[in-house]
């Protein structure tokens, strides 16, 4: 871990806006931000561990424990909401036996409800591992996720 985190920090050493960039890269590398990584970042940037955690914990997309292999963001903003997002959420929760914010027991998916993916022309939408799927129906949402299991 030490080498990898230090390498990431060195990559951003010259950036002015370092911390978010480092945290993003650490999360990409390990799937989450491990406590040991926070220690190393604190040491290298001459900050306190608490200061790093203070910043990181503010942002909803930073996570501090491992999650499912696939990140599923289901949008329930006003536009998706009036276009049936609740039905999609309910169906996904039933089908995968989770509530939003949880990871499935087999560790495949982590579901999160978000409020605004910025693709309102295709509402309702969801994002799976960074890829956007629009004009969803409950059936189609399930089908898309079942497909990425294979």
């Amino acid at each position: 871990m030490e080498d990898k985190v230090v390498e990431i920090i060195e990559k951003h050493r010259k950036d002015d806006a370092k911390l978010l960039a480092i945290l993003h890269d650490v999360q990409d590398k390990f799937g989450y931000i491990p406590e040991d990584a926070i220690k190393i970042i604190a040491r290298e940037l001459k900050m306190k561990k608490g200061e790093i955690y203070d910043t990181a914990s503010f942002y909803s997309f930073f996570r501090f424990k491992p999650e499912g292999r696939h990140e599923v963001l289901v949008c329930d903003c006003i536009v998706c909401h009036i276009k049936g997002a609740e039905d999609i959420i309910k169906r996904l929760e039933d089908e995968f036996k989770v509530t939003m914010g949880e990871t499935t027991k087999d560790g495949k998916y982590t579901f999160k409800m978000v409020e605004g993916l910025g693709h309102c022309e295709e509402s309702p939408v969801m994002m799976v591992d960074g890829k956007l799927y629009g004009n969803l129906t409950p059936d189609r949402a399930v089908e898309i996720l079942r497909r990425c299991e294979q």
Partner: protein
Amino acid sequence: MILLNDAQNIEDYLENGGFKALRRALEIEQDEIIREVESAGLVGRGGAAFPTGLKMKFVKNEKNTPKYVIANADEGEPGTFKDRALMEKNPYQILEGMIISAYAVGAKKGFFYVRYEYRDIAENIRKKVKELRRLGILGENIYGSKFSFDIEVVLGAGAYICGEATALMESIEGKRGYPRIKPPHSTQRGLWGKPTLTNNVETLANIPVIINMGGEKYHKLGKEGCSGPQLFSISGFVKKPGIYEYILGEKTIGEVIELAGGVDGNFKGVMLGGGASGYILNKDYLDMPLCFSDAKKRGVALGTGDIIVFNESVRIWDVLHNIARFFENESCGQCFPCRYGTKRMREIIEKIVNGKGTSEDIKKLNATARAMKIASLCPLGKSAMTAYESAMKNFHDDLMEVIK
């Protein structure tokens, strides 16, 4: 089209006169650029509609250095997706506007802040920045001039509040996205305490246009109280949702809905002016021209230029509940009126949605709205109840029907 041209690669952009404005700008005085922007009457497209030229002048006149510029692409209002479309289709025009602005105010470094949800776009902008460096359009001595400027792309990590300029600065500095107490304004003390010019990406895309056509001529696009093109995000129950570009003041809300294919179902109302912090309006507003001054006269605002269309299936209390939950989640928690107010607002509306609302609850909501508007530190808390208050005005009977 002036803004939403398709120029995703540099060849296309250069072929259509790209970076001509920058080359011209580098040959004229900084003050002259600011004068052109002022005479154009350009105001910010990120929601606040502040005069862009004036903001540039404030930063230019500051003695403190270094100065910074920020392109704000933290587009977080539900129902607003025009910045995304613009960054996808015409990214160089934004970057050109950013470089010209930096030259005008005397900044050497800029930050392009993109929300996490647009991660692929941030990656693309990063590539374009590298490309421009290679071409000598960014970096040392741009186009052989004495002016040097570079851009760092910053990816957000999920926080609606970071769209607020000072919260965004905190975020760039590596801190929690807490809005700062003003004054001092960020034009005086912004990033790392230095004078900083922050503009929405759509605003920036207008700068090359102004330099090319001249402020006076740009000003004539539109009508009294609003100039230039604007991108409108049309969504909800219309047949062809999407981004539409019109000259300000040229079209009414009703006309724009028709141009987006018309209502899918029977018209009930619209939400105008910046997603969750916007206004809920009824059919009386359909004839309102999309212009800052017309909106102001009617007591509303264009905000980020989004129109969410409601048909008969939409229940207003349900929409208000969604908005209340949004604000409860997105309140940064720094100031008490907003932290507690958004929670209280969600709890009361939830009770009403569950059919248990009383007239006492309406009184409580009104009091909460007033308190948040007076005492919140930043626009999030101040605008959290805009939707509720406007809905109460425009859909009063509809809303009161379920109140005991």
